């Protein structure tokens, strides 16, 4: 009933694309909580009203293509500035525009209003606010910079009354870097949420589909404070929320819970485990005998591919490139050496030295952006650049659940700043940067991600369809996925 009133208000004043932003947000706040079956029901009833429905590509709203739900429209999905069929007088004329989505908080640290709103929200949810640490380089003053020595869990009482213990543990594992890598983080998140669902009981007079989603919101805020969510985690959370809200209200609690647990299991199985198998199958065709393969850092998918290829008796050797301060390449090195693959290990500054003998470069990705850019661990773009200069093919391996609808052209606007103290190192008894905080004009920068332009990448191996696509086909895959859902 509430939603009907809101909708009626917005339907009364015709508005064209973006002229009255207040009205649009009103509309949106009423849209999010309901499935689109409701809207189509309302819309077909009215006459002569111009309805401004913005087909949003925001992460919160995606996977709900408007058009198929609204009767008789027949417009394209994911429409950007598409004018839909004009209908007869009895029906409704629709203009579909794409809208600039709401900016996430973690890239607006330099805006005090946003920070105030966030503080209020966290207070409501009873989650402590994490303070920034150290001098931030001016180019990155819009991002958070936390210290690993001050994890959020220090400010939370143990046992916490607000946050589920599995989630507290997960948050600590994220912020201390015990669980790293986008696949590992997503899987850990899903397991923690499974635990939450198992321990959940619906309070009286509440519906499971609505209450559970509200219960998850403070957990997500908490995890976000511990470490900003990755693109894969964002997609997983969207999926869970959708599944929960799709639970019919007459479903019994036990049944609903087991259904949800099943869904999560399926998601992990399909999107991560089976996807890895499919990608490995395609990728092994690209590895020939006598190859020298270069990998960077520790990508679980690339390691899986190489181990599978080795089991299928391909003869190749691997060069592992690593970089300070995380030194994740050593982990990859351990796994490969355990399998028996012959490896060489260098640091990223020596990459010009080893590249003349390399035949292929395999890279993992954190996310694939809609404009074809590859977001991955910092240093990936550099390796792709030097490989291009030496004419060595670069192959990126990425599952489809990491494809994301954001666009980005440089590594500044949206990134993550890690603890700057990681850069400090002691060599021959001398630590030059020990007192860097005391020197006012000295700053340390520890970036976590960077974006690789699509012209450096020759091929993306993924688990959809034929498996091998060029970098620029990412929005096509996203569209196909949306239609499927």
């Amino acid at each position, binding site marked *: 009933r509430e939603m009907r009133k809101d909708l009626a208000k917005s339907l009364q004043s015709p508005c064209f694309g973006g002229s009255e932003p207040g009205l649009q947000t009103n509309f949106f706040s009423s849209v999010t909580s309901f499935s689109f079956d409701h809207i189509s029901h309302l819309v077909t009833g009215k006459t002569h009203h111009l309805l401004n429905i913005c087909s949003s590509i925001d992460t919160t709203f995606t996977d709900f293509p408007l058009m198929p739900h609204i009767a008789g429209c027949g417009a394209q999905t994911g429409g950007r500035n598409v004018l839909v069929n004009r209908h007869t007088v009895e029906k409704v004329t629709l203009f579909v525009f794409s809208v600039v989505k709401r900016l996430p908080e973690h890239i607006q640290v330099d805006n005090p209003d946003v920070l105030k709103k966030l503080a209020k929200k966290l207070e409501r949810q009873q989650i402590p606010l994490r303070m920034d640490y150290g001098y931030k380089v001016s180019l990155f003053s819009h991002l958070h910079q936390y210290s690993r020595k001050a994890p959020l869990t220090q400010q939370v009482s143990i046992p916490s009354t607000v946050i589920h213990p599995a989630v507290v543990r997960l948050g600590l594992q994220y912020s201390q870097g015990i669980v790293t890598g986008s696949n590992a983080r997503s899987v850990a998140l899903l397991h923690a949420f499974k635990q939450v669902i198992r321990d959940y009981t619906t309070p009286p007079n509440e519906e499971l589909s609505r209450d559970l989603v509200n219960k998850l919101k403070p957990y997500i805020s908490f995890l976000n404070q511990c470490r900003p969510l990755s693109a894969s985690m964002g997609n997983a959370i969207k999926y869970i929320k959708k599944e929960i809200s799709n639970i019919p209200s007459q479903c019994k609690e036990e049944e609903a819970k087991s259904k949800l647990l099943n869904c999560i299991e399926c998601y992990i199985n399909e999107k991560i485990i089976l996807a890895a198998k499919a990608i490995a199958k395609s990728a092994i065709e690209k590895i020939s005998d006598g190859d020298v393969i270069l990998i960077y850092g520790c990508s679980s998918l690339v390691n899986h591919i190489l181990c599978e290829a080795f089991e299928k008796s391909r003869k190749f050797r691997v060069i592992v490139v690593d*970089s300070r301060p995380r030194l994740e390449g050593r982990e990859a090195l351990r796994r490969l050496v355990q399998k028996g693959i012959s490896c060489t290990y*260098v640091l*990223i500054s020596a990459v010009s030295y080893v590249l003349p003998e390399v035949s292929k470069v395999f890279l993992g990705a954190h996310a694939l952006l809609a404009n074809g850019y590859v977001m991955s661990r910092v*240093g990936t773009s550099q390796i792709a650049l030097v490989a291009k200069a030496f004419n060595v093919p670069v192959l990126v391996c990425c599952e489809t659940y990491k494809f994301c609808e954001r666009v980005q052209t440089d590594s500044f606007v949206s990134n993550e700043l890690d603890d700057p103290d990681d850069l400090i190192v002691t060599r021959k008894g001398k630590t030059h940067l020990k007192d860097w905080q005391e020197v006012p004009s000295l700053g340390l920068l520890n970036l976590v991600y960077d974006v690789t332009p699509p012209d450096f990448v020759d091929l993306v191996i993924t688990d959809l369809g034929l498996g091998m696509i060029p970098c620029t086909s990412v929005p096509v895959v996203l569209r196909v996925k949306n239609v499927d859902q």
Partner: protein
Amino acid sequence: CGHGKDVNLSQKGQIIGLSLSAQPYFDSTPCFISTMPGPYKETDLTERVEAFLSDLKRGGSGTGPLRGSAETARETTALLRRITAQARWSSAGDLMEIIRKEGRRMIAAQPSETTVGNMVRRVLKIIREEYARSRGSSEEADQQESLHKLLTSGGLSEENFRQHFVALKANVIEVINELLTELEGTTDNISMQALEHIHSNEVIMTIGRSRTVEAFLKDAARKRKFHVIVAECAPFCQGHEMATSLSKDGIETTVITDAAIFAVMSRVNKVIIGTQTVLANGGLRAVNGTHTLALAAKHHSTPLIVCAPMFKLSPQFPNEEDTFHKFVSPHEVLPFTEGEILSKVNAHCPVFDYVPPELITLFISNIGGHAPSYIYRLMSELYHPEDHEL
């Protein structure tokens, strides 16, 4: 004698004189110039040469030599002057043989320290010039080693250096002193040009630690405000030292990891680097990671400026030798604490990188700025082609 040996002045037949004016650059020990050979002089000379060689050998770790290349150049030149003064020779050809022999030994002690070889070649060129001047033939004619001359006369052959000139020794020593003066002032000459190349509010990127670039930036910072990003250059992390030194002078400095070079390059206005050697084709042998930096700069069309004094110019070509790359202990890369995998893995730790001349925009040296395509010409002015192979 500075070694504390007793000198018996009552011994006949020895003329020992003390000269202080001709040796202003030495450490406090005065030098003995003797017209007749004496046992102390030769042992003294060989001792000094041996000390220098062992110093060179020791300074071979990747963190850089025990002294900077400027000091190495100065010490080499001083040692060559001492050899000129004290060794036994009667004609220019003899002297050149002696210097070549010593030069070969010094280069063999530390092949990657090219300034030593460069100074030897400079001194050889000085000797040739002085000889030619003493003979009275014009310098211009000698320098034009034209193809015609090579075919008709067979070039300037060795036997031309057999004539004895009395004033040759003094002349050579004088010119070597001039060379030493030039070497003293290289860093200052380069820093003086800083304001021509850096404007205010710039973002400058550099890698590792170069004393030349440090002086260059500090000189500019006295008048202008700009921001410096230093890539730390693992595994030796010399960038840390550079960053602390720059920030103490009030320059806004940021330290980044090597992996972030391409990520931040889009906001950089200029890249200014030092180098270990400038090669004959205009390329560089610089600290590892420089090639990546140069490629990233090229991709973003950011100018790459190399601050290198003239004594770093070396007549070697990059693909000539297997000795281009120098490696140090891989435990810098993969420490011994990773014991289980250490034996099954190859780890490499190269020290230098080759940067081709197409990626370089400008060389700034003590005699001004040049494009990489001009380097071959400068080389022909500094070294004689017959000295390229010692």
